[in-house]
């Protein structure tokens, strides 16, 4: 029973902590991100299974975490509000050729991050960008000048 409570608590705490860590631009895990993932993951394992390292206990913990994930996925699919809470919303960084500075400051994104993503999309100049959008997974997608309809 303790394992179930610990696993549910751990899942919710981890979800909250990861959620309040701002989205990192780039959409790919850096070494910096790996530090957080492995460290938090390692800590939460100890608290979840406790001193009982039996296969039964570990299997219970895995099943609870899987079930929690399934419940959250179900909630996301059915409620746009819940989806926003868990995943956030896409955010416009360049709107009609204008930087959205307030959004960028809040998301800790600077011009260089946007330009780096633009180059990876084959965009050589920021003046070619009409819209830049920070997606839920941290990638930045672009709409070129003249592309929007």
């Amino acid at each position, binding site marked *: 029973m303790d394992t179930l409570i610990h696993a549910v608590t751990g899942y919710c705490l981890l979800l*909250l902590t990861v959620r*309040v860590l701002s989205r990192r631009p780039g959409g790919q895990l850096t070494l910096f991100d790996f530090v957080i993932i492995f460290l938090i993951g390692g800590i939460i394992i100890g608290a979840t299974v406790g001193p009982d390292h039996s296969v039964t206990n570990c299997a219970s913990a895995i099943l609870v975490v899987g079930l929690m994930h399934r419940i959250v996925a179900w909630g996301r699919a059915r409620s746009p509000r819940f989806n926003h809470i868990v995943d956030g919303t896409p*955010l416009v960084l360049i709107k009609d050729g204008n930087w959205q500075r307030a959004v960028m400051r*809040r998301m800790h994104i600077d011009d260089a991050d946007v330009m780096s993503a633009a180059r990876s999309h084959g965009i050589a100049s920021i003046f070619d960008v009409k819209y830049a959008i920070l997606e839920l997974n941290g990638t930045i997608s672009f*709409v070129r000048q003249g592309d929007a309809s």
Partner: protein
Amino acid sequence: MMRLASVSRTAAVEESIEKVNEEVAVGEDLGFQRGWWRFERATWVFFCLLLVADLAGAFGRGPLANATLKSGDGTLDVSYERIERSDTPSMLKIKLGSPALHAGIATLYVSQSVVDALGAERIIPQPLSTTIGHGGLTYQFAATAPPASVEIALRPGSPGLFGFALGVPGSDTLRARVAVVP
């Protein structure tokens, strides 16, 4: 057949994602996002307060958690943690004064809750004898002269609020409560 029909139902494609400038379907919800940023700030403040409270010992293992009990006649002087963590070892330290020692024997009464709720694992030094009764255990130790001390290693098994009592025959019993956090 009915099941297949329900699976293959279709719906016409329509604009369900909110557009920016009536041009790009993004689904941005800045109103929600501004609320979320406020929530994020409040959450980090809360996390910082939790860490400060943790460092101070509000969840055990810190200055706020350490406590002492003393009997008026100097028979017992007890150091313990008023806030313990479940499945985490700690020490209950008991100093016995001269009224506790008679004819080379020190006697100490420990309530059963020290064993059951607070998870006493061992007592140092090894007692000469242990007698059960009066809702607890009465230990006898070989002793010469004060100061003499006894330590009980604790490891509470589950969270909760638990009381315990310590005493020496012929003297006041000391009582205290320990909060065990998960």
